């Protein structure tokens, strides 16, 4: 953070267009986060940087909008009975340690290899993590479709059954989302990995939610809701760390928050109308598209590091713009799936309400 002072004094001038842009991106990001527990934030840092916001200020301001958003989302979903507070806090605390460790790795890579090395590390992390975890979720989604089990209750995986069967004295804790006692020696590394990923690609939930589902055995709805608690715990600590260096641009953070609080409420409402299967569909879709977006940038950074032959400026700019556009597309497709699910759910519920009212009326008329 050697250039902190320079970055902090370099807060951008805000125009109405910029403000509206950030509000809308915040809304879409919030909608996705409210639904799958995370996943909306990865586009915000590049979105702010595209406006000329310095990298560290963009990361800090993104983090400062994330924790209050996660708090509101967690409260909303707690009211729907979807949150496991204990699991969220336990994983959130180990996640905080992961954030600090992940940030120190980032700083070391930046010192050793410069901006291009740091960017390459982030892009490769995106590609590897999203490739592995995204494939697991996608396979699960495709299997559910193939076996026509999309409406069925979720089954606990063999791995999660094994984790739940291990008894390590002095470390066992009961978690309501799992309806089982498991050793915190399993939750700590998962939370830690979530934190490292949050510090690296800004979306810890891409590891947090799948690990709660497939490794611990939490239902999809509870895993995505509990991720909001983890994001809150990690976000408060992370924001404070950046704020201590004066890096938070409160105007940017609150503008994004303004839109994202509309989105997160809507996304949370959406979870009450869908089967858990839909959480996996949205997550897998976003992950696979973002993977493609980040993979496009790998040759750019390899070229900047001199590991492959130099690419022309025109090609670099084209790859950068395409990558950013695909990232926004991923978020918009996710938002579209969620809005469609909410719309269908609302119509079905209204039809049911009308049918019930007619039946009630008929019963009353018949009784007279």
């Amino acid at each position, binding site marked *: 953070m050697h250039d902190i002072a320079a970055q902090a004094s370099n807060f951008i001038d805000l125009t109405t267009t910029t403000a509206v842009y950030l509000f809308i991106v915040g809304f879409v990001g919030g909608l996705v986060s409210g639904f799958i527990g995370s996943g909306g934030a990865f586009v915000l840092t590049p979105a702010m940087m595209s406006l000329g916001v310095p990298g560290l200020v963009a990361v800090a301001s993104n983090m400062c909008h994330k924790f209050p958003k996660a*708090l509101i989302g967690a409260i909303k979903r707690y009211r729907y009975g979807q949150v496991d507070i204990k699991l969220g806090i336990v994983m959130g605390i180990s996640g905080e340690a992961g954030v600090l460790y992940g940030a120190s790795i980032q700083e070391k890579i930046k010192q050793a290899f410069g901006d291009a090395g740091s960017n390459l590390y982030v892009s490769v992390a995106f590609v590897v993590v999203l490739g592995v975890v995204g494939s697991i979720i996608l396979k699960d989604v495709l299997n559910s479709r193939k076996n026509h089990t999309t409406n069925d209750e979720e089954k606990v995986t063999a791995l999660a059954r094994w984790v739940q069967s291990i008894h390590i004295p002095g470390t066992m804790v009961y978690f309501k989302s799992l309806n089982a006692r498991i050793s915190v020696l399993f939750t700590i590394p998962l939370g830690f990995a979530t934190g490292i990923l949050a510090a690296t690609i800004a979306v810890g939930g891409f590891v947090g939610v799948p690990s709660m589902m497939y490794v611990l055995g939490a239902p999809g709805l509870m895993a995505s809701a509990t991720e909001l608690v983890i994001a809150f715990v990690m976000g408060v600590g992370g924001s404070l760390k950046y704020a*201590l260096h004066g890096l938070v641009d409160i105007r940017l953070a609150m503008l994004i928050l303004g839109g994202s609080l509309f989105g997160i409420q809507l996304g949370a409402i959406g979870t009450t109308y869908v089967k858990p299967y839909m959480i996996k569909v949205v997550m897998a879709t976003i992950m696979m598209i973002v993977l493609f977006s980040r993979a496009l940038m790998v040759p750019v950074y390899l070229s900047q590091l001199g590991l492959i032959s130099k690419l022309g400026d025109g090609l670099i700019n084209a790859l950068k713009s395409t990558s950013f556009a695909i990232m926004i597309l991923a978020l918009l497709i996710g938002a579209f799936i969620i809005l469609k699910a909410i719309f269908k759910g609302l119509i079905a519920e209204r039809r049911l309400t009308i049918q019930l009212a007619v039946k009630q009326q008929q019963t009353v008329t018949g009784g007279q």
Partner: protein
Amino acid sequence: MAGNIDKFKKRHFGKAIVLGIVSLVLYTILFTEQHVLNEVFAKGGYYALLPIATAFLFSFVHGNFTGNFWDIIGISAKKEKR
């Protein structure tokens, strides 16, 4: 039944108006005083608590406003799952 729905909507409408006004005032202050706020918030150290406190304040006011907003326009959670 209809009376209950009316009461529910009126309560949410009233809350949304009050919280919406407070939220608007907070955002107005944020932008009219942006130069002062930026200078103070960027000092770091103990001043780091200011952005954190601001985020909590906005999330409480604006978060409650947005919740009531969706309720009054008829978009609320599925009843059976509540």
